[in-house]
């Protein structure tokens, strides 16, 4: 039989695992510990054969658990194995960490189907038009936002392959860079919370998901920034790879009233003020509306400043005990979410615009956010009962810290800069962003914020997020239908069509959610019995003994562990790596004094590479599926390589400066 080329790769890996195991196993005096290691080698080989992993784990776990019990007392072995298995399975069913998975997955499917990605990409593309490599940058930003909200790599890469890839190719972008930015950007959702990977890691390693989310935020952000930085530098250095956009591509269509008003000058803010005071040919209502939208950034920044002032100068007594200190930090950081508390106490020295705070915020936060708003706001009010005492009189307030004035200065400068740059085109772009980028970003921030600042559990936040996703889907579908109706294409009433479509979306999303959660959670059912068998056989002790006997330094151990995970990422998927191999690494961490939280962040960053490394690079295949026939897989792989390099750099950076990941958890949870 002629073996195909692709198969060789797999067979070679298999042989690399099987041969050392066969050679080094002391067959004559086989202890239970050796059986455990044998089991581990067998599972890797069995997984590579392609049988559903959950059942491979189940079958093997049951068999080896039985072997372990039999070596102690053969007469009870069967009953004990069955007991262990069913208890482990029930443990997965009643796991209060894993319950967040179906909810986040559901939210992802709903957001995916909300049909907002094309608006998102288009508005970001126009907003970033002047940046070098603007289309690639817009692609990465769109991917990061959308992938964070959905978490479905395949869908994000496919959609961006349909939207951004043609746009980049038409603009004369290099194929490899276009492909690389789509695939790398699409995988960001795995790392940036709320991600399912971190829940799975948290459930496996017994690390708080909340802290993982807080920790993964900045590394994810850093990785996205590195990608963008790379693209910008490359575009500056080699403009032939990413030519700047032509004037036609950057053109923003202006509505009639702005065309009329722009005759008076290019600055929209000045023009609008003139139109309000003087008599223009444009209705006053429209002008006021536009003026209000133009002032939104200033109003939002003002609100943040007011809230920061309010919490920074809050009386000191609430910071007496550790518990309250957490609450204090919460109130301080949570300025964006807990508007209502702050609105009551807008400080007097906020001359700029003290009164419209409430109005600014309610307009600034779109509908999905409102659904989630009561929770954080009321909770914040509860958490800081001492703060309300501050309303009594400003005399009790602390002096304003210096950093506040620095922040004030920066914000004022930003507002001034915005006002100066506020052209009519920018106003239109801002309105587009307001309709696409901000709702999604706010949904993510609400979900994340309420989790990280302890206002709700991940489960609750996920449920509210799913609800928000549903509202997003409703709103965007409604808008699309109304547009179609305005163009005279629609049949029947807009509301009815939207309702019908929403029904289909929810139905499909819940079916998909059932399948995805079954896939992940049955894996846990299998790994429950499998890791129990591994522990029963004493495989853990053998591994521990062996690793300790190597006399590694923590640094060496860390590099070794990350290297093993990196290599495993080639043939295996992240679910399998975490569920099967983390239980082996985690008990070793205390021996080397490594924080499991920090380790988890490194693993999450590391597993990003698993999506981009051939041959199981899902992202590449999804992109290939929707790209023009002459784009080859090799070109896509070649495009992904620089981004993989950036991932490794990010990994090294995170290792060298653990504060990137650990700073936020330490501030919020006092770790």
């Amino acid at each position, binding site marked *: 039989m002629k073996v*195909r080329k692709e*198969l060789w*790769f*797999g067979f070679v890996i298999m042989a690399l695992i099987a041969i050392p195991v066969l050679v080094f196993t002391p067959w004559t005096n086989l202890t239970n510990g050796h059986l455990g290691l044998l089991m581990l080698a067998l599972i890797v080989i069995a997984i590579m*054969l*392609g*049988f*559903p*992993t959950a*059942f*491979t784990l189940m*079958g*093997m776990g*049951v068999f080896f658990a039985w072997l372990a019990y039999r070596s102690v007392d053969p007469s009870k072995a069967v009953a004990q194995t*069955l007991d262990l*298995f*069913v*208890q482990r*399975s*029930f443990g997965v*069913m009643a796991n209060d960490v*894993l319950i967040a998975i179906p*909810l986040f997955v*559901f939210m992802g499917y709903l957001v995916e189907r909300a*049909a907002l990605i094309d608006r998102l990409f288009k508005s970001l593309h126009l907003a970033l038009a002047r940046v070098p490599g603007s289309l690639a940058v817009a692609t990465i930003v769109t991917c990061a936002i959308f992938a964070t909200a959905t978490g479905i790599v*395949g*869908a994000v890469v*496919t*959609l961006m392959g*349909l939207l951004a*890839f*043609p746009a980049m*190719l038409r603009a*004369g972008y290099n*194929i490899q860079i276009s492909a690389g930015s789509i695939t790398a950007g699409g995988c960001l959702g795995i790392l940036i919370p709320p991600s399912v990977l971190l829940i799975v890691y948290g459930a496996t390693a017994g690390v708080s998901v909340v802290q993982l989310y807080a920790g993964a935020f900045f590394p994810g952000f850093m990785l996205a920034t590195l990608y963008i930085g790379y693209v910008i530098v490359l575009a500056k250095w080699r403009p032939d790879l990413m030519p700047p956009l032509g004037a036609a591509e950057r053109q923003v269509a202006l509505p009639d009233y702005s065309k009329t008003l722009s005759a008076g000058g290019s600055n929209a803010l000045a023009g609008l003020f003139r139109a309000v005071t003087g008599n223009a040919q444009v209705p006053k209502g429209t002008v006021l509306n536009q003026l209000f939208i133009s002032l939104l950034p200033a109003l939002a920044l003002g609100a943040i400043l007011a809230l920061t002032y309010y919490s920074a100068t809050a009386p000191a007594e609430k910071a007496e005990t550790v518990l309250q200190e957490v609450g204090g930090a919460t109130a301080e950081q949570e300025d964006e979410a807990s508007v209502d508390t702050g609105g009551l106490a807008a400080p007097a020295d906020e001359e700029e615009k003290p009164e419209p705070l409430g109005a600014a915020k309610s307009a600034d936060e779109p509908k999905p956010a409102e659904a989630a708003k009561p929770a954080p706001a009321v*909770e914040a009010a509860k958490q800081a009962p001492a703060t309300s005492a501050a309303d009594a009189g400003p005399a009790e307030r602390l002096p304003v810290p210096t950093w506040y004035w620095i922040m004030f200065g920066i914000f004022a400068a930003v507002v001034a800069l915005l006002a100066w740059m506020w052209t009519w085109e920018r106003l239109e772009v801002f309105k587009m962003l307001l309709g696409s980028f901000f709702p999604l970003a706010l949904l993510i921030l609400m979900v994340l914020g309420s989790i990280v600042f302890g206002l709700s559990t991940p*489960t609750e936040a996920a449920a*509210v997020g799913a*609800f928000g996703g549903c509202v997003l889907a409703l709103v965007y579908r409604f808008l699309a239908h109304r547009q179609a109706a305005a163009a005279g294409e629609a049949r029947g009433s807009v509301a009815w069509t939207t309702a019908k479509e929403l029904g289909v979306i929810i139905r499909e999303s*819940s*079916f*998909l959610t*059932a*399948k*995805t*959660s*079954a896939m*992940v*959670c*049955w894996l846990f*059912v*299998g790994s429950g019995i499998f890791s129990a068998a591994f522990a029963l056989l004493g495989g853990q002790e053998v591994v521990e003994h062996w690793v300790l006997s190597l006399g590694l330094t923590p640094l060496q151990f860390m590099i070794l562990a990350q290297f093993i995970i990196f290599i495993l990422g080639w*043939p295996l*998927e992240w*679910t399998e790596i975490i569920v099967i191999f983390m239980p082996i690494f985690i008990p070793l961490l205390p021996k080397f004094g490594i924080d499991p939280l920090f380790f988890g962040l490194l693993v999450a960053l590391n597993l990003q590479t698993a999506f981009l490394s051939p041959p*199981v690079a899902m992202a590449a295949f999804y992109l290939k599926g*929707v*790209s*023009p026939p*002459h784009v080859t897989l090799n070109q896509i792989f070649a495009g992904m390589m620089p981004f993989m390099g950036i991932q490794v750099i990010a990994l090294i950076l995170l290792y060298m400066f653990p504060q990137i990941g650990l700073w936020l958890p330490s501030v919020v949870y006092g770790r």
Partner: protein
Amino acid sequence: MQKLLLSVDKLSTWIGQFFSWLIVGLTLSITWEVFSRYALDHPHDWMFDAMLQMYGTLFMMAGAYTLAKNGHVRGDVLYSFFRPRTQASWDLLLYIVFFLPGTIALTYAGYFYASDSWMIREHSSVTSDGPPIYQFKAVIPLAGAILLVQGIVEIIRCIICIREGDWPSREADVQEVDVDKLKEMVHVKDEDIQKLDALVVKQEHAK
């Protein structure tokens, strides 16, 4: 034969899809609970148990559905490069070696686990006066049994595939990445992609 296989598929699918609606219930009930706790100051003790039961039932009952749609994650280093006949032979062997013992053990042990709980009308001990939990434990043998039936169907499929050299068909279902639907969503047509190909060829020639 094919008819029988498909009707078992349909049964598993129907059960899985029926229970998949729990995710809607879960979302709504938790959202309401959050609202009720923070806004109305009226939390419910039994909510914690209720949401766990919804989640547990959801994924356990969807196990057979996922198997019927070939949705359980596979290590895909070699598998997709195998000929269908090779795939089926390995699958058949591993269904017998891994799947059957595991699932039978789960169903058998689950039955006694649930019946013990059922006999004493066990209630949850998470909160005092917790909700009943015995019906939740009964999910284990039920889900195991459906999974077992679906597994036997899959085994028959393997045998058919070995004899005929090709996999028997399955019924279509919603796909996670349904390229045609996504194309429609962002208004991209196949002709556009074809047109784009000319650009790609041009760039290749320019080098």
